[in-house]
Every structure is written in C-alpha cells, then in structure tokens.
C-alpha cells in the first residue's frame, strides 16, 4: 500500500475495484458502510463527487450517503495529511497522561518556524486502540508506539522535519 503506481492506471483500477465491491453486495443500500470502507481504503478519503456516485449506484438519496459518511468518525471527507499521529484517549491512556501528548503535538506543530510542514501533520485521537497495557499509546503513521513520553513524541516529530 506504500508504493503508488503511476496515477493514470491507479484511477482506472480504483473505479473497477469499487464497482466490484458494490456488485459483491448486489448494489444493496444496506451495504453502504461496507462500500464507504472500501472507497476510503482505495482513495484515502471520500471526496463529495465520489459520494454522489455511490449514492446513484446504490440507489440511495445523496443526503443519506452524506449523513452516514459524516456520522462515523472513521470516514474523512478531506484528504489525509502525509503524517498522522493518532493519540489514544481511552481511559487507561488518559490516566497515563495522553492529554499532555495531544497538547505537546499541537503546541509543537503550531510553532511559527513549522509553518511549512504544519499541514503535513495531522493530530487525531482515538477512543481506544486496545493496547491499554502499554498506555499511553500513539499510532504514528500506522505504527503503534507504546508507553509514549513527550521526548519520544519530540523525536518522532523531528524525524519528519517538525522542529
């Protein structure tokens, strides 16, 4: 999933894959959430024109598709930044000081000298990632970091060019 082939072939392929997913569910409106999962996996996010296409194919009102896409936290209507930090804010991580990590991340990214790279980093939170024994946990670009400290966050930030 990391290496991306030339843009043109990707696009054709993605439409086909999405179509295949919808036909697997026999274009049933009940499978909307599954279809949105597939779409987000393929495109990285859910651009509004794509939602319209999905609505037409599944024979659902566009309002219903937009409603579902915005109701669930997992779906994003905007493209994702190249780097994401997902700070777990489950109870165990909260008790271990996860809010401090969110604050550190936001403060570091908001520094004036980081205006160039700021938009490359997205700071999100999750309700529980199931690694409570390793609190506080942070998912940095898909990798789970255990027992995270401010220093560790700082090191990871510097690794991607945030001062």
């Amino acid at each position, binding site marked *: 999933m990391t290496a991306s082939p030339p843009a043109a072939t990707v696009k054709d392929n993605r439409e086909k894959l999405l179509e295949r997913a919808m036909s697997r569910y026999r274009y*049933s*409106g*009940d*499978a*909307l*959430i*599954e279809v*949105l*999962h597939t779409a987000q996996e393929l495109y990285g996010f859910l651009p509004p024109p794509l939602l319209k296409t999905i609505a037409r194919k599944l024979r659902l009102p566009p309002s*219903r598709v937009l*409603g*579902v896409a915005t*109701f*669930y*936290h*997992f*779906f994003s209507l905007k493209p994702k930044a190249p780097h994401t930090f997902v700070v777990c*804010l*489950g*109870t*165990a991580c*909260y*008790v*271990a000081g996860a*809010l401090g990590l969110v604050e550190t991340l936001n403060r570091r990214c908001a520094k004036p000298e980081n205006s160039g790279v700021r938009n490359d980093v997205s700071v999100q939170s*999750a*309700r*529980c*990632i*199931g*690694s*409570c*024994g*390793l*609190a506080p*946990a942070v998912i940095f670009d898909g990798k*789970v*970091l*255990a027992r995270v400290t401010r220093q560790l966050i700082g090191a990871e930030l510097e690794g991607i060019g945030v001062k």
Partner: protein
Amino acid sequence: MTVEELYGKQAEELERQQALKNRIMCCSAAGCLSCGADGLRQAISAEIAAQGRQAEIELCGTGCLGMCSRGPLVLSAADNRLYGNVTPADAASLVSANPSGKPTLPDRAIDLDAPFFSKQMRIVLANSGRVDPEKLADYIAAGGYQALGKALTAMSPREVIEEVKKSGLRGRGGAGYPTGLKWDLVMKQIPQVKYVVCNADEGDPGAFMDRSVLEGMAIAGFAVGAQQGYIYVRGEYGLAIERLQTAIKQAERERLLGHRILESGFQFRIDLRVGAGAFVCGEETALIASIEGKRGQPRQRPPYPPESGLWGAPTLINNVETFANIAPIVQNGGDWFASVGTASSKGTKVFALAGKIANTGLIEVPMGTTLRTILFDIGGGIPAGKFKAAQTGGPSGGCIPEQFLDAPVDYESLAKIGSIMGSGGLIVMDDSSCMVDVARFFMEFCMDESCGKCIPCRAGTVQMHDILHRMTRGQATEDDMQMLETLSELLRETSLCGLGQTAPNPVMSTLKYFRHEYEAHIRDRRCPAGHCQIESQLEGAMA
C-alpha cells in the same frame, strides 16, 4: 466433516503436536505486537531454520497471554514456561535444546505460580496460550466445535436453551440480562427469518476474538432458529477483523459453518460488519441501524430486538464474552457453570487491567472475587503513590473508592456502588488523578459521542461538560454543583438510550465519593491532586 471426523481430526492433531520436541508460542495479541512481537517471531523462526530443526520445533502465535506489561511474551510448551520482555537476541537459547529442566532464560522467566496466575480462573480465555488464532486445527485439537457437534446431534434447541438458563449466564455487556431468557424470547417468535448478532463494538479486548465466539453464535443460531449471524466489530481492531475473516473462511471450508454444518441439516452463515467509529453503536438498536447501513442512531424500545430487530426480524444480540461462554456451557453442562461465581452472578468475568497498576493485562476471575484480590494480588498493587479509585464500565461506569475494595465484583454489588460491570475495562487511578477532571474527561467523551437524536443527551452532555470544564479551571460556583446534580438526574431519567442514561454515572459517583475534591475546586479554587491548571494557583505561584 462429520462429528466422528471432528474427533478423529482432534486425535490426529494432538498426536502431531505430541511428536514435536517443542512448540514455541509467541503472543500475537495487540499489546505484544506493539512492543516488538513480530520481530521476535521472525528471529525465532530464523533461528529454528538456522539450526535445521523445522521438523521438531513448531513456532506459532497465540492469543493474549495476559501479562501485557511484560510483553513481548513467549510460551515454551515443552517445559510449560512463560517468558517476558523477550528480545530477538534470546531466540537462540529459546530454540536450543534444554535438557537440564531449568528455565532456558532464567532472568526472563515469569513465575506461573504467582498470584497473577493462581488467583485467576479461565473459561473464556482457556484457549489463550494453547491455540494459534490463525489455525483451525489448533482449535479442533483443543476440543473446538465439539459443543456445536453435541448440540446438533444430541440436543434439541429447547434443551440447549434449558442448559443456558440453568447455567445462570447473564449478558456480559451492560445490564446483565439473563442470556437464557433472551434466547427463549427469540426462539418463541413466529417469523421464520431470524438473526443472531454478536456485539463486538464494546471495546472488549481484541483477545476474545477466537473461534469459540463463532461456535457460540452457531449454537445460538441452532437454538433460536436463525440461519444468519453478523459480527459487528470495531473498525479500530484491524487485527481482530483479519483473524475473524480467516477463522470464518476456514470454518466454512470444513463445513463447520455455512451449509450442512457437520453433515446435519442445520445451516448458519456468519458475516462480518465493520463499524466505523461511533461509540453509540454499542447500544443494540443503534448497532442494528448501523448493520442496516444507516447512521448509528438508537430508537425507542419496545419493541425490543428479540421481537423486532434487524430488518424487522427477531434478533438475538449478545456480546463477545457472552458468546464465548456458550461452548463451555453446552460441553460441560449448565450445572458446572452455575457452580462458579455468586448466587446471582455465575461464571467468570474478564477484565482488562490498566492504569496505575503493576501488572497490566488481561485477566479472568470468578464472579464475586473482591476488588482487593484483583487489584493487589493479581494486579500487584499500585507501583507509586496511593490507591484512589478503580473505574469500571468506561464512560458509562463509575469510580469505586477505597472503602469498597472488599466488595465482591458481581452485577448487584457494582450497581449498588454506582458503577456497572461493563465489558471489562478496569482502570486504576492513584492520587495523581483529579476526580473532577476524570468526570470532565468522560463527559467530554459522551458529548462527542452523543448521536444527537434526543435532546437531554445532546444538550445535557454539553452543559455538564461546560460546568465540569469551568470547575477544573477554578471558575465554578456552588450553584454549578447544584446544577450538575440536577442535570445528572435529568439525563438519567429522560435520555433515549443507554449512552445518555449512563453518561452521568462518572459524575454522580465522583460527586458521591469524592465530593471534597469538587468543593476544593469551587471554594478554595485549588486542585487537591495538583492536576488542574487553576488560575488563582498560577497567580499565587507567580506572586
């Protein structure tokens, strides 16, 4: 396969396992994976290959071995020893022959007789450490699908339900509704099409996700007369989703799920539905809406799902842990299960111990075990600082103060204290946690997760969060405290679903047991735990 073939396969696999010199089992649950279990497994695998012993040593993964704080964990089956904090450098000594009988890695060995293990009782987690979650043969060797075979060949649906009723099993999710009664209700419905739904959205630790859940669901399908099951699993649990998909595929191939199960006339399909991150989908009617592809908003009950659930059909909804208890109950009988636990709460309960405690991890204890045993014997106590509160049930639960440490953990006692059993989170807080901020934290969560359908929850959580936020900033008044109590009552009484009704629980329990902390924030404008950033304190520090 037929039931005879199932037993044959078990014998065959056990024989194969016994012929091996050793089976090295690496914990492959989320906790250990995030502290390097994958690299360790590769190192061990390379070492086995280097020594040329692939034929006599088997390397496999297994479900959560429990002691997550010592991860990555490795279990060596030959001498039944558990090792913690294992590094790739230890691979050579793990693989090499060890005739002396002493632990191969003395300083990494974990004492299996320690209270952490000896005070536990494993029914639901029995297969963790014995079964590779990716291998069906392993589960069959451990006696898997025999309960389903027994139900299909030797029992009638009514007998299965009687057995579950006799066991006294109660729903392991929230309210603890008797499982047998629920099954009975669904069975008695007239419509032909019925559904079985497994609620895996409650933040249960991913380790539950083994095949006993599938087996439990199939038995439930047989008992209530359903042919289709759904598992609603959280999108965040990538690992669980992957393993469940593998397990379903393997079972269908062997005719343990799907058409003509075990060559009987019974058919039962299980499909996965992946959630997309909405806490309210743990509520059963919201979960149904979400499976139907809609927004996860709850609806008015009655009618309850056993009468009208998924697509209007009678629907049985239980959570993961409840289903995981079914196979052992059918296999060993309801009386056996009822002999564990207290008068009203039978069996065991799994907890994910976390927070300010020495041994974090996944544990299973008989119902009625006291909190003190769980926290201080099994959990190993609080590493630094003093015990302040234990929190069960997440945002719907309450904080349990020190004076109730000797209360038995069962449905009634927890409810009396003002908390709930919940799906198994048990978080320990020490004196560095401010209880007002804890209440604020949970209220913020409920505010974000409120689906917005009913007004008490949608507006009430915002108001309560606002008050709590002002308290933590030292800007609240006595009136605010009064208002907080009024709102708590209002939300509890008038919200549509469980999320809103239980949202005030953390506030009410902290107001009851830690009132002095609230008063300190309001009257003295200080935070006793030193956690909150209160302006007057800051000013004082600066002056």
